[in-house]
């Protein structure tokens, strides 16, 4: 589903991604770990060309993303959902308008069909009562859920999550993580999840990679990575455990 070869991205002299290569199979959930500033979010943004990489190759659904023109790129983007760290709900629109925004523009649904889709997706994220609320009236967790609902309403083949549980309490984080897993199973989506949250990763991940020094330095299942004797991984995951335990306590 996703193949990335030798991806490079630098901001002036600061090389963020230096020769990143990875593959994600159809229906797989890949979690991307890494220290802050190692280019995890940049990697996601390069995949949908919100940022242009300096070199490399990105293939999504057999299409070479970097060689697509705008029309072709937008056709591909319609098949990709993106949950931003801040949820990025359009704050001048109500929840209903946020959800119908992509539907109006890309599909020929009747108003009744649109309404049914909105209700169905809000039921999936257990927030039907928020349908007429404005984003400013929602809590952080609710915003994430609505953001998730907006991303999946078009039933994308690929979902990209940029730190889906950041800033949420451990219980809400867990709920969001299970929700992501459930949606992934029911819609048979492929997912790439950038996170620092080990609990979230344990729930979601089929496989994980760790970015370090601009490269994919480690790869494996969560138990493999967390039980590794590699000094960097030991250090990295011990911090993750400490943070997690602190949050739970």
């Amino acid at each position, binding site marked *: 589903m996703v193949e990335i070869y030798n991806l490079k991205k630098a901001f002036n002299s600061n090389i963020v991604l230096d020769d990143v290569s990875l593959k994600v199979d159809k229906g797989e959930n890949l979690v991307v770990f890494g220290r802050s500033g190692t280019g995890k979010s940049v990697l996601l*943004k390069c995949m*949908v060309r*919100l940022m242009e990489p300096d070199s490399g190759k990105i293939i999504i659904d057999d299409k070479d993303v970097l060689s697509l023109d705008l029309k072709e790129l*937008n*056709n591909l*983007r*319609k098949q*990709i959902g*993106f949950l*931003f*760290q*801040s949820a*990025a*709900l*359009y*704050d*001048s629109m109500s929840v209903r308008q946020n959800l119908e*925004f*992509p539907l109006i*523009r*890309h599909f020929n649904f009747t108003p009744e069909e649109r309404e049914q889709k909105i209700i169905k997706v809000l039921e999936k994220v257990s927030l039907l009562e928020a349908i007429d609320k404005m984003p400013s009236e929602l809590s952080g967790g609710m915003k994430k859920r609505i953001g998730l609902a907006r991303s999946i309403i*078009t039933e994308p083949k690929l979902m990209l999550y940029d730190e889906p549980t950041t800033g949420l309490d451990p219980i809400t984080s867990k709920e969001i993580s299970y929700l992501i897993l459930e949606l992934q199973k029911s819609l048979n989506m492929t997912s790439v999840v950038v996170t620092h949250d080990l609990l979230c990763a344990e729930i979601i991940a089929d496989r994980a990679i760790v970015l370090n020094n601009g490269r994919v330095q480690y790869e494996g299942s969560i138990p493999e990575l967390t039980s590794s004797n590699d000094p960097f991984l030991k250090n990295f995951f011990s911090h993750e455990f400490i943070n997690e335990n602190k949050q739970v306590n």
Partner: protein
Amino acid sequence: MNNKTSSSAYLNSIENRLNEFFIMIAGLWTFSVQFFRYVFVPPYEIYEIRKHMNELGIKTLPIVSVTGFIIGLVLAMQTQPVLARFGAEAYLPGSVGISIVRELGPVITALIFAGRVSSGIGAELGSMRVTEQIDAMEVSAVDPFKFLVVTRIFACTFILPILTIYVIFIALAGAYIAVVLVQNMTIEYYTNAVLYSVEFGDAIPGVAKTFVFGYIVGLVGSYKGYTATNGTEGVGRASTTAVVVSSLMILIFDMILVKITLWLWPTF
């Protein structure tokens, strides 16, 4: 040594400001070209344009009403003693009418519109930029430039002339109040005197230039907001600089447009 360091820092700051200025001019030019490339291409986002026109018109209506009324009133109060010195008080409605229709109405309305709307657009788009809402729109395969920028520039371009015509009438009403306070003049006489002096040809260039002013307000506000960086600090900067730049551009373009009008119609 110290003098040398401070003068080189000063030169550097001038260089940076000049760089910023030229980058802004290039950015505004690119935005303009992109606007004209997109504005004629469907989807036309009529609902958004109508929504912005309503919002911008309603948002600005109270402030332009008060300002227009006071400007008309004060202008007549200031002009009356000068004309009285030459025994030309009968020309008061005409001279005030011409000033309001040709220059004061359009420029004052545009400047207030710039202060109210350009900063609003700058702040709104700036906050959308820093909270990744514009990125979210782009990634959902909707062109944010078309949806956010083109609709706002279009709405500003067409709502300002309507506001200007309204302000001209309000200012003339204000002027009438001032005239009545010092002279015994009926509304019929005042209206006839204004209509006798102000020709239709006076109003056309005055109102026509507000299309350009409205375009400038929408363009600068959108550019500043759309290209905002550095979080909330950047949003604040986008909002303030949008007002300063659009106000200055309105005055500069006013000068240019008056010159062009006089060149095309020397008797104007």
